[in-house]
């Protein structure tokens, strides 16, 4: 298992634009026949409202340790060669990457499944929040995880 380009050597939370190509370059592994890259990008509208940009905030220490645990769990469960995740904080423009997840494994099934697992858990569990700044000048902290309304437990989530 390639441990080099994992959470242990890359910041899980970044205040500068994500170097997606650089991260992808680090994800390659001689034992990996499949590399899956997910890029969560800022779109220009949400629920019918024009979005100007997003601003992300995080509890960096908690988010970093949580993302490390998520990557470690995914690596173990799907025997990944590489698992990388990085999330932006600060202002992120329309079309820019807010979060990237890269997984590499011997075959594509594991890389796809692990990638989805990682991004789902990051979105639901990591202490990272987006504030949507709309084109009309208003803003709103948005799209909070609402799983507790169904599970009855703020630590239990429903993944898509």
């Amino acid at each position, binding site marked *: 298992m390639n441990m080099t380009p994992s959470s242990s050597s890359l910041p899980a939370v970044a205040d500068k634009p994500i170097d997606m190509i650089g991260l992808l370059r680090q994800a390659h592994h001689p034992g990996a026949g499949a590399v899956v890259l997910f890029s*969560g990008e800022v779109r220009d509208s949400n629920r019918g409202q024009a979005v100007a940009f997003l601003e*992300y*905030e*995080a*509890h960096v*220490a*908690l988010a970093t*340790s949580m993302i490390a645990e998520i990557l470690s769990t995914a690596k173990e469960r799907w025997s990944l060669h590489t698992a990388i995740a990085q*999330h932006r904080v600060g202002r992120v423009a329309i079309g820019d990457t*807010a*979060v990237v997840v890269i997984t590499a494994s011997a075959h594509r099934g594991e890389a796809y499944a692990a990638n989805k697992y990682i*991004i789902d858990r*990051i*979105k*639901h*569990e*990591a*202490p*990272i*929040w*987006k*504030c949507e700044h709309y084109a009309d000048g208003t803003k709103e*902290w*948005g*799209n*909070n*995880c*609402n799983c*507790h309304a169904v599970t009855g437990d*703020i*630590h239990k989530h429903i993944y898509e």
Partner: protein
Amino acid sequence: MKIHVYAALKDYFQPEFEVSELVRNTDELKAVLLALNDKAAEILSACRFAVEEGFIDNAFKLNEYDTVVIIPPSSGG
């Protein structure tokens, strides 16, 4: 006890403040916070609490020197 709040909670509280009341657990802390701003009731019911970078539940015994971080529901991605 020092309190740090994030994201949407900053619409209801200062990002960092102190509570002087005797607070022994998260339920008592929630009661103090609601006394400060009862409009935060809904979001507080969905928040996680952390001390020293570890999540805590109501069984965790808080003391006056703790810094408690209040974590609203995540909305990353």
